[in-house]
């Protein structure tokens, strides 16, 4: 399989058979688990329920390892909300779905990202990553022996979601109407508490959540992973509706269900726990020797086949070919712009750059009282019970990936690492989610392989293992395939939290890293000029590592007051964001390392760059550390006053009131939604 290209091993990675989530050793006898999933097709037709059930599914993956879910991150993509009313409805409904589900569970949604692009017109990408935490000794060591009982626990099995798996890989026109799932976060919350109590009492031999493919997949995958057989009776399954056929029972994708294998000595206590939480708990079968999966209806055997056959369908080796669209991209750079101030104002208020507070203000991001760094900055930070800190973020950059799938994918991985590094945490593991159109189209399959290659290479170079991932294909809108959208979540660990301080009068602004003329796929090209093409930013792993190490050392020594990554909208936007959050102005000179011309100095999205804020007393230590490391940096200017001023030599090219920028930045997403 192609996915084997991603390095999955590392000193902190713990592998257990049958896990849906990745496990990292967090130190002191504790582990962090993480997983990522999407619910794209259902969300495109029923955004509220689709997004909500997406949260539910990934939370159960975390739970199946025996860990308590402690955080959710969401990555959202929709069409152009400035023009498209339908995209607005999809966006609003998906956010409500995630909010209502996550908030009710009491698992904080601590971060995420949102992007709008016409390629998602009439469609939606709703990615959800979840993080869990627990003691290493509490991890479920999946095992089963002959005679163990197979238990279905949680909500009732209904017709909802019948045909769901097929639905996920079909085009939207042929949607199966019965594939609508009504989310029930209340039952999910009860399942979480019941499962954690059962784990505490050591009643669980093995566990798996029911996802795509329903019982038939869960049973076959569990049997296959554990090397046992399972015999079950469809009549024992608690159904919500009468008259469901065995096929419907086996393939129902009703949410909020878990499959648990327990022993006959433990079943009574498991049933008592379920009774306490009033969730159903049906013994539907038992473990047999040999690898057969036998489905019965009462006495009658309906199916009897090796579990491995059902479990191991794999991505075939498909044809691939470099897409011809790459040769047709815009080649001409745009002409000079008359008004840089106006351009910056436009970018700050643009749908892809403006403040996300409208989104994360709807999510309870504090429940669990672990959230040390809240959403709104580069990455969010959670405190762990072992005294350490976990930084998490997710990122994707389809605009870059469209013009260059390999470097675009590596770049979004690097950006996620940068976000984590800005909080003083060292990246420890990544999750990837590869979202593409139909792989049967050789051109799309090529972009898939390229993106995967980009991720694998950066992962190897940096020694950041992939601890889990997912592939979502056939993401096609009526107008064609989506842009390649690989998404990356990065987890980092730190011994001390670094909470950014506001910049104050007299503090210095420093840029670390080279700015290059790499404007392909930038917001400046696409949003301001409508140009799709050009060279997208390229990551050099050696530079990436060197710059990141320098930042982590500056933070370790507490030499800087805050660090912000330079990404969408380039230096101009990143510096403005620092000023807005600090409520202070800044005079910025554009003498940046890397030798980019004016427009690129302002708006290029070159990677491996960080903005640093240092006060007068640490400034010398900062510059000497950077000098010693041999990393490129530039002194941009000093904070003060109430205006953002950018000067090209002696000439002021941007002069904007921070207040005004702040107002536009903070209100524009909400205004767009409420239209």
């Amino acid at each position, binding site marked *: 399989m192609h996915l084997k290209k991603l390095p999955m091993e590392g000193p902190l990675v713990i592998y257990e058979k049958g896990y849906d989530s990745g496990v990292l050793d967090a130190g002191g006898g504790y582990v962090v688990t993480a997983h990522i999933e999407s619910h794209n097709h259902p969300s495109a*037709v*029923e955004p*509220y*329920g689709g997004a909500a059930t997406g949260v539910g599914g990934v939370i159960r993956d975390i739970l199946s390892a025996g860990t308590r879910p402690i955080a959710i991150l969401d990555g959202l993509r929709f069409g152009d909300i400035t023009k498209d009313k339908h995209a607005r*409805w999809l966006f609003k409904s998906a956010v409500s779905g995630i909010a209502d589900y996550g908030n009710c569970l009491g698992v904080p949604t601590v971060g995420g990202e949102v992007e709008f692009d016409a390629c998602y017109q009439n469609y939606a990408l709703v990615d959800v990553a979840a993080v869990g935490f627990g003691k290493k000794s509490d991890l479920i060591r999946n095992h089963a022996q002959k005679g163990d009982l197979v238990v279905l626990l949680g909500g009732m099995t*209904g*017709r*909802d979601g019948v045909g769901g798996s097929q639905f996920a890989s079909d085009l939207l026109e042929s949607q199966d*109407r*019965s594939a*609508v799932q*009504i*989310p*029930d976060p*209340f*039952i999910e919350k009860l399942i979480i508490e019941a499962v954690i109590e059962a784990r505490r009492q050591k009643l669980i031999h093995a566990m798996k959540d029911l996802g795509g493919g329903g019982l038939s997949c869960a049973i076959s995958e569990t049997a296959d992973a554990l090397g046992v057989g399972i015999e079950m009776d469809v009549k024992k399954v608690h159904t*919500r*509706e009468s008259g469901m056929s065995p096929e419907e029972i086996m393939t129902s994708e009703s949410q909020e269900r878990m499959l648990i294998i327990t022993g006959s000595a433990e079943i009574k206590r498991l049933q008592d726990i379920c009774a306490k939480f*009033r969730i159903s708990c049906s013994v539907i079968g038992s473990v047999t020797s040999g690898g057969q999966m036998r489905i019965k209806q009462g006495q009658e055997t309906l199916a009897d086949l090796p579990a491995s056959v059902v479990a191991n369908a794999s991505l075939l080796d498909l044809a691939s070919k470099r897409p011809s669209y790459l040769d047709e991209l815009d080649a001409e750079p745009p002409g000079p712009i008359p008004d840089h101030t106006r351009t910056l104002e436009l970018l700050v208020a643009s749908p892809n750059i403006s403040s996300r507070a409208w989104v994360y203000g709807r999510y309870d991001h504090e429940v669990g009282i672990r959230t040390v760094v809240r959403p709104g900055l580069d990455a969010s930070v959670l405190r762990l019970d072992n005294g350490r800190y976990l930084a998490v973020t997710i990122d994707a950059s389809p605009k870059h990936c469209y013009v260059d799938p390999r470097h675009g994918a590596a770049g979004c991985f690097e950006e996620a690492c940068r976000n984590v590094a800005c909080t003083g945490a060292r990246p420890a593991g990544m999750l990837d989610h590869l979202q593409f159109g139909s792989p049967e189209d050789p051109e799309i399959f090529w972009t898939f392989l390229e993106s995967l290659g980009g991720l694998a290479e950066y992962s190897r170079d940096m020694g950041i293992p992939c601890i889990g991932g997912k592939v979502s294909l056939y993401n096609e809108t009526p107008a064609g395939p989506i842009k390649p959208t690989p998404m990356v979540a990065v987890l980092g660990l730190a011994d001390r939290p670094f909470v950014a301080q506001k910049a104050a009068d007299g503090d210095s602004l420093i840029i670390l890293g080279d700015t290059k003329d790499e404007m392909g796929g930038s917001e400046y090209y696409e949003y301001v000029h409508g140009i799709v093409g050009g060279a997208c930013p390229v990551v050099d792993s050696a530079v990436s590592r060197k710059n990141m190490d320098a930042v982590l050392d500056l933070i370790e020594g507490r030499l800087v007051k805050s660090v912000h990554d330079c990404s969408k909208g380039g230096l101009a936007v990143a510096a403005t964001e620092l000023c807005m959050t600090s409520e202070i102005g800044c005079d910025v000179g554009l003498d940046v390392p890397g030798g980019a011309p004016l427009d690129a100095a302002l708006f290029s999205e070159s990677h491996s760059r960080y903005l640093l804020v240092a006060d007068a007393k640490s400034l010398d230590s900062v510059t000497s550390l950077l000098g010693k490391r041999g990393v490129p940096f530039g002194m941009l200017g000093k904070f003060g006053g109430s205006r953002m001023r950018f000067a090209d030599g002696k000439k002021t090219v941007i002069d904007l009131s921070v207040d005004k920028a702040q107002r536009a930045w903070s209100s524009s997403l909400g205004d767009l939604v409420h239209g």
Partner: protein
Amino acid sequence: MPAFVVSVTIENKPGISDPEGDTILNDLVLQGAHEAVSCIRTAKMLRFTIEESDGDSALARVQKICDDLRIYNPLVSQVSIGVQAGSN
């Protein structure tokens, strides 16, 4: 023009579950020993006060508003619209 009150009732389609109704039934009504109740389904209602020439046009107008604004998602919900009262 006379004013009409048009009521729009939105509920999950029959085959689709209604967790809120289930919770109210199981955790409240049945806990209170009212076993005669076998099912509770929830719905949302919107009452529009609208000026139109007659009841039928009021009804048609409200139907159009609900569809245009995606007041409900036809994939999940069904809607019933009725003129409740007319006045002048």
